[in-house]
């Protein structure tokens, strides 16, 4: 695939997703214009109709984007090695548990404490990712099955830990995590009119950088990509396929674990019992898919889906049901999956400039 269609397909898919969302709104006698105003306001803080500006929306937009960028990196990293990591959700919860533990039990000076919390979360997520990696490498058990199961284990482990380990009084949240362990920032909150914007964006951006560096620049990334593209070829070339599978899942898990910490000590300031999985892992699949499993792609698609989430309050306030955002998200993913169809369509639309890369005799 050349660069042009690499960019073209997602852009067309996104466009079609929004067109479909708008069409449904029109069909149900609602205004798609309202939706686009709401989306615009949620990313820019600017309400064009009332001509008011509230930077809180920008802050919340970033807050919504951060965890799904990380789960997107998690899914994307595994994907690069040919693995389908459905388990980002569970790895995220394990990261969250570890973050709570490191927050409550360790005493350290401000910055160092947060760093320890983040590292603990990455470690826990990494271990949770190593399990399906090991089973895949050692016994050839499909990672999809194992990761789905582990999502449930993580969910119940989380809810058990909240009550039994962290001694929650009300059984739904842990005692507050001390401020030294939090990513919260009064400065950032003030700048954004009291939003929950926090220092979490620093580890998120670093993660994107690290992802790019590992995949594109290192020998490790080289062998991961080789395994992802052609397992047999990589094995023939002398690469340790099984070890790559495990390492890849560990790193994928670490990204997701970090997402757990960013939520728990950034968005919130305590551990929470969860009635059900919150869907960050599945959002990550969409983010990775739309972002083409590339670092920069994940960044932008993370912003896109973060926007869809962040626009929720404003959209609903305009009488647009929250399901519309889900429909748009789902149809974008669907259209991406229909990549070949889109390429065909674009060939049909421009018959004179047919794009064909393969020229055989």
């Amino acid at each position: 695939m050349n660069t042009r269609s690499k960019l073209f397909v997602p852009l067309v898919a996104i466009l079609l997703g929004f067109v479909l969302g708008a069409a449904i709104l029109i069909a149900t006698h609602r205004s798609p214009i309202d939706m686009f105003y709401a989306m615009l306001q949620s990313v820019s803080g600017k309400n064009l109709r009332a001509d008011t500006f509230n930077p809180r929306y920008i802050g919340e937009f970033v807050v919504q984007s951060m965890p799904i960028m990380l789960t997107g990196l998690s899914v994307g990293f595994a994907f690069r090695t040919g693995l389908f990591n459905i388990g980002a959700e569970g790895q995220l919860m394990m990261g969250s548990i570890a973050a709570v533990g490191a927050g409550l039990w360790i005493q350290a000076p401000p910055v160092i404490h947060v760093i320890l919390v983040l590292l603990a979360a990455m470690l826990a997520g990494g271990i949770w990712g190593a399990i399906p990696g090991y089973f895949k490498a050692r016994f050839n058990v499909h990672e999809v099955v194992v990761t789905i199961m582990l999502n449930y284990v993580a969910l119940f482990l989380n809810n058990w830990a909240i009550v039994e380990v962290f001694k929650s009084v009300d059984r739904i949240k842990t005692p507050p995590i001390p401020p030294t362990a939090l990513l919260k920032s009064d400065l950032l909150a003030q700048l954004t009119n009291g939003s929950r914007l926090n220092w979490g964006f620093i580890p998120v951006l670093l993660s994107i950088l690290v992802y790019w560096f590992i995949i594109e620049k290192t020998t490790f990334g080289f062998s991961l990509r080789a395994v992802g593209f052609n397992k047999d070829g990589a094995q023939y070339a002398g690469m340790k396929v099984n070890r790559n599978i495990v390492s890849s899942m560990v790193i994928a898990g670490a990204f997701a674990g970090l997402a757990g910490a960013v939520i728990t000590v950034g968005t919130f300031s305590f551990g929470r019992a969860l009635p059900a999985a919150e869907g960050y892992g599945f959002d990550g699949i969409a983010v990775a898919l739309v972002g083409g499993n590339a670092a920069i792609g994940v960044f932008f698609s993370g912003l896109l889906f973060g926007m869809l989430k962040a626009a929720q309050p404003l959209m609903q306030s305009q009488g647009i049901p929250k399901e519309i955002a889900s429909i748009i998200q789902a149809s974008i993913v669907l259209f991406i999956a229909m990549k070949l169809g889109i390429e065909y369509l674009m060939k049909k639309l421009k018959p004179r400039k047919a794009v064909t890369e393969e020229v055989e005799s």
Partner: protein
Amino acid sequence: MKKNFVRAFCAFALASVAFAGSTKVGFVTDVGGIDDKSFNQSTWEGIKRFGQENNLTQGKEIKYLQSTAEADYVPNLSTLADEGMDLVVASGFLFESSMGEVAGKYPKQKFLIIDSVVKDKAGKTLPNVANAVFAEHEGSFLVGVAAGLKAKADKKNMVGFVGGMQFPLIEKFQAGFEQGVHAVNPGCKVLVDYAGTFSDPGKGQALAAKQYGAGAYIVFQAAGGTGNGVIKEAKERTQKGDVRWAIGVDKDQYNDGVYAPGKSAVLTSMMKRVDVAAHDVSAMVRDGKFPGGEVLVFSLKNKGVSIPGTNPNLPADITKKIAEYEAQIASGKLKVSEVPAKQ
């Protein structure tokens, strides 16, 4: 002193209301959604009733925002505050910390939390948040009496309770129910299960199947969306000739249990009138009497919890007995414990 402050605050609020002309009420649901046939839906019905009484436009002067995840609570509450709603309502103790956070950032905004009490770090209530709580154990006692008597009448000796998640609030339902059953039918066994979720009807049905399978004749569910599965299981069994009953929660769920014209598997319901709370506090805001910082208790005494006015499935002798207990509890003669007896 605090009261004075509140009064001054209310006076200010009244002034602004008078200018605006109408009282705008916004509502934020938890992850269960607006149509959960339970808590969120009831609250919204109360607000809608208030809207109808005051000619308010739905979607403008009264509106709701649904949440997809817990992380949405704060932005949803904040957005409504930004939009200048006169009262922002949220249902459920899950909102406790989010509302505390947002109320701190919007000191002039009036909030109502139903089912919980928002306190600051010093343990004091916030002046711009009204708190509505319920005496669920009292209402649950009454449905416990209904279950105990019904089982006895049909020569059954086991009933059940399915809770959403196990924490003190839901344990109040369990405690009241158990005491009610045993008050009229001391030998009756009460099975207890918690689903761990409020939004999984499948799980509710599975737990109901387990309890019915073990011999429970009537199951009381206090599990929100999960509880719909309990009712479904009761319906399916009764339809097949294996008569079982479910007891609804939060609102009158008789209609949810209908499996044939005129026949419902829902014996009665423990109505928790969150709609009354939402409606009444909205009216107080309109009238300039916002009870900021106060804890309003809705109990049997003020009809904040009750069983439905009509119960087609309960014979007159049982309803009569229930009425007797109701009077005793309302008058304070009978005390119902909030915590389940240790087993």
